[in-house]
């Protein structure tokens, strides 16, 4: 559904992405693991069209979308949940969810329930600083679900979420996969890894390994947690 082909990006003389290749598929949840600073959020931004790569291409349903802007990609069915979502003065959660004009009130309620937020308590609240960090992230996830996206890029949706709410988040992500979305789940958390169908491990701007979640988690703990070469990993050991 979405293919990333030989993506390269250099910032301030430092290679951030260095020939990145992978694909995400309809109805599958692809976990993306990597230590801080390997370029995961940069990749999310490139996929959403917030910034553009130096080389390589992003292909969605057979079309090269590498140079298309954010709105175009969103209308094609790609969306992103930010790691630290923006806040909006004067915009209610109800209005935020109904950015998808085809969404019914009932569906809006359901998506809030899925992330553990009772609609009666939240629909009329602002998407503003009155929400805690965890609440805001859950609203963001509900909004992404409300888009009914073909591809959802979720940048650490589990960070800053309390243990009571985390299962709601995980169930919601799993539900997105069941409903046919291709999900790219950027995460550090092992709970998140458990909902993934496949794990991709990123280091030094490349995917250095991929495979089943449990095996990849163990591999990640054994190799990447001791990696002292962010930007220059020991790829021979991969």
């Amino acid at each position, binding site marked *: 559904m979405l293919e990333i082909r030989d993506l390269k990006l250099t910032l301030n003389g430092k290679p951030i992405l260095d020939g990145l290749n992978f694909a995400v598929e309809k109805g599958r949840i692809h976990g993306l693991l990597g230590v801080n600073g390997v370029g995961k959020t940069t990749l999310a931004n490139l996929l959403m069209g917030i910034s553009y790569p130096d080389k390589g291409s992003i292909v969605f349903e057979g079309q090269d979308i590498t140079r298309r802007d*954010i709105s175009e990609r*969103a209308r094609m069915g790609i*969306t992103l949940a930010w790691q630290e979502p*923006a806040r*909006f003065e004067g915009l209610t959660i109800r209005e935020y969810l109904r950015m*998808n004009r085809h969404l019914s009130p009932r569906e809006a309620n359901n998506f809030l329930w899925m992330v553990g937020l009772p609609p009666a308590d939240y629909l009329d609240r602002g998407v503003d600083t009155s929400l805690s960090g965890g609440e805001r992230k859950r609203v963001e996830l509900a909004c992404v679900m409300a888009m009914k996206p073909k591809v959802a890029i979720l940048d650490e949706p589990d960070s800053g979420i309390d243990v009571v709410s985390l299962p709601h988040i995980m169930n919601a992500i799993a539900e997105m996969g069941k409903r046919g979305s291709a999900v790219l789940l950027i995460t550090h958390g092992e709970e998140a890894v458990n909902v993934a169908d496949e794990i991709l491990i990123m280091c030094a701007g490349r995917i250095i390994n991929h495979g089943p979640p449990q095996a990849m988690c163990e591999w990640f703990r054994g190799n990447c947690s001791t990696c002292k070469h962010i930007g220059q990993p020991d790829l021979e050991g991969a």
Partner: protein
Amino acid sequence: MVAVREYEAMLEAYSRAGGSLEALRSKDVGNLVIHGNKVLGVNEARGIKIETQETETGVNVHFLVEEGAKISHPVHLCFGVLPQQGLQEIVLEVEALADSEVDVIAHCIFPNALDVTHRMNADIVIGDHARFCYHETHYHGESGGVNVIPHGRIRVGKKGLWQSSFTLIEGCVGTLDYDFEVFGDEKSVSELLVKVSGKKEDEINVVERIYLEGKEARGLAKTRLVLSDNARALFRGETYGNAPFARGHVDCLEIVNGDGVVAKAIPVVCVNDKRAKVTHEAAIGSIDSKQMQTLMARGLSEEEAVDVIVKGILR
């Protein structure tokens, strides 16, 4: 006959501006309609006394809320000048006696103005334990030919509440010289909110001053300005903590959305009692790129995203 025609014209403009005709026609709802220097309609609901005196250039109004009166329906004020030229000077004296409660909704309408001046000098006294909420909304045409000068001085009694909003987002501002100051007594709450959308060659000057004179008095001076084209704006928000445990805050956000815009903000926070605390935040800048990206990632175009953000700020 002329007065009837003027009244009907004012009601029509009022209705187009979103005002409630039902409220103006109801005998249970206090209201006052002034066109230029003519009083076209006045209705005193129970607990309210409205006295008016026409002058050469406007109307003097004395507005009294009786002691202990809880006014169930908001009082509606409709001020305006319908011709292209005109002068309207409103001198407004308000007394909200102790324990009274009232909401006032004012519509100020200048749809055809090419050279109109609307000046209001308000002297407002809110009694102890009284609550007075005043919401003023302006409707201007697109010519920018209005000179709006609302000045107010409000004294809020012990445990009293003053809450006001001034909204001018429809049509061109023209020039605005808004200057309100509030003096809050012990445990009073004072809130001033100004929301203005400036465009073309608009000139906007907003001054909000809150003096927290009584122990545990609280105050908020908040302004939201969105500026485009060649609009110019100066905001000055001042809060003075002059009593023990007084708490005040100045909050200004100016969104700059045009190459010719000039925006300035001067927050002043002053404490004259070591137990008082006043804070401020002021931000001037273009529309936040992350907000834009977020809305565009939901499928909105750049223009639609700007619209959503601006409308939210001015809501």
